[in-house]
């Protein structure tokens, strides 16, 4: 669509290098096409929010970025997704390595039913990033500190992670994702199951994490998109309708569908 031409000037304004670049990404579930050719760049140390009505393809797109869609048999991806210029759908590229580089946080807090400590070290252990106990200890501490959870759980690291509150669980999941030092973090509606205070914690955290990571977040809460992101992409019926500076999208969207959606006039 004309969304490509629309977002050109905005892209030029960003000085950060491109981290992830999607080119004409089409996703099929069996015979049904869920995404009709998405073009978008995600810049380094930027939070890109993806908004849109349910079933618009924003989660689908997010999941193509670390190939989580591979787990669905009938799902097929066309087009190119470049991470630092490398095609992540290249058959030579290892999915395990990709998912170490592109971490993910899910809608429902889903800590493993193990201790907090084991939750955090699971990734590093899996990827062989550490071997000695003191290395693991260090990873646990820095990861939990980064996720803003250290002070709350440092005395009960060996208690089950599922015993934490919802917001703490989600931060534990973020700590778990951060523990493998990914380059990109994908978040799929990370606050939809949380209360406003816990949500505020996560939002603050996202802003802090932006300094070290590139973040793509899917959210149904437009105010959240407005608060945490630098740029916002609006998806509608499998199309990327508009992508641009968040400020621009929320004061003066170019496309009428974006306008209708964000102001609540969506038919």
């Amino acid at each position, binding site marked *: 669509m004309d969304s490509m031409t629309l977002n050109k000037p905005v892209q030029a304004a960003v000085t950060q290098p491109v981290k992830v670049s999607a080119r004409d990404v089409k996703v099929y579930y069996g015979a049904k096409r869920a995404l009709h050719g998405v073009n978008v760049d995600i810049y380094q140390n930027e939070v890109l929010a993806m908004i849109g009505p349910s079933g618009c393809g924003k989660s689908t797109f997010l999941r193509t970025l670390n190939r989580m869609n591979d787990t669905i048999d009938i799902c097929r991806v066309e087009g190119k997704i470049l991470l630092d210029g490398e095609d992540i759908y290249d058959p030579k590229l290892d999915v395990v390595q990709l998912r170490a580089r592109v971490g993910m946080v899910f809608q429902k807090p889903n800590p493993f039913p193990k201790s907090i400590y084991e939750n955090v070290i699971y990734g590093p252990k899996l990827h062989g990033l550490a071997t000695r106990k003191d290395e693991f200890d260090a990873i646990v501490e820095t990861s939990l500190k980064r996720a803003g959870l250290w002070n709350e759980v440092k005395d009960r690291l060996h208690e089950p992670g599922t015993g934490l509150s919802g917001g703490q669980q989600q931060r534990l999941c973020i700590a778990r994702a951060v523990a493998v030092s990914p380059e990109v973090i994908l978040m799929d509606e990370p606050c939809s199951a949380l209360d406003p205070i816990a949500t505020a914690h996560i939002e603050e955290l996202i802003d802090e994490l932006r300094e070290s990571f590139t973040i793509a977040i899917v959210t149904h809460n437009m105010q959240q998109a407005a608060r945490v992101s630098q740029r916002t992409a609006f998806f509608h019926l499998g199309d990327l309708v508009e992508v641009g500076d968040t400020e621009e999208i929320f*004061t003066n969207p170019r496309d*009428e569908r974006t306008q209708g959606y*964000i*102001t*609540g*006039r969506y038919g």
Partner: protein
Amino acid sequence: MSPTEHTVKSFEAELQRLSNLIAQMGGVVEAQVEAAVQAVGRRDVEGATKVMQGDVRLDEFERQIEHDAIRMLALRAPVGVDLREVLAALKISADLERTGDYAANIAKRSIALAQLPVMRPAGTIPRMGRLVQEMLKDVLDAYIDRDVEKAVAAWHRDEELDDLYTSLFREVLTYMMEDPRNITPCTHLLFIAKNLERAGDHATNIAETVHFLVRGQPLTAERPKGDKSSFTIIEPVEGEG
């Protein structure tokens, strides 16, 4: 502008109500300006008093609009065109309130003028008043119809108003230099003219707001370069001369 209605009907109704309040307030301001200018021309003390009393209503309007707008900002968290709508209402109501104040001030001065001899430059005042009224009417129509063309046209007419003001300014200065006894009525006349000129500026503000409301961008981007200096530079030059 929007293709469909709000899913939340009460939001739509609140926005409509806000818009209506602005339209009503605008009508009142137009009438106030007209009555004040008439009071000057006809030396009508009674009419002038009415205008002064009428200003209270405008204050009420402004309070009401401000209250509604704040409420919507807090409860509806409007974005996009809705956000601009609410912001525009706030700004326009402030401009209108200020214009109303000028009208009241003109009425007040008309009472003083009525007790003084008639000055010839007073003939320019009704012309300026008409111009201001037209501008006000046009920008308010533009607001109601979300008509950017009309707003921009009205906005350009401010130059004409400035020219009238500049010539009146020169004339009045000459009269004051001729005879010190003219100073009192001339000063009043000068302030009346200045009030009208300021009212015109507020009308252009409203035009700019309408532009922002509809297009989402400030009008300054389209403004011809020479225009901006025209009314700021004249005053000091004339003051020195």
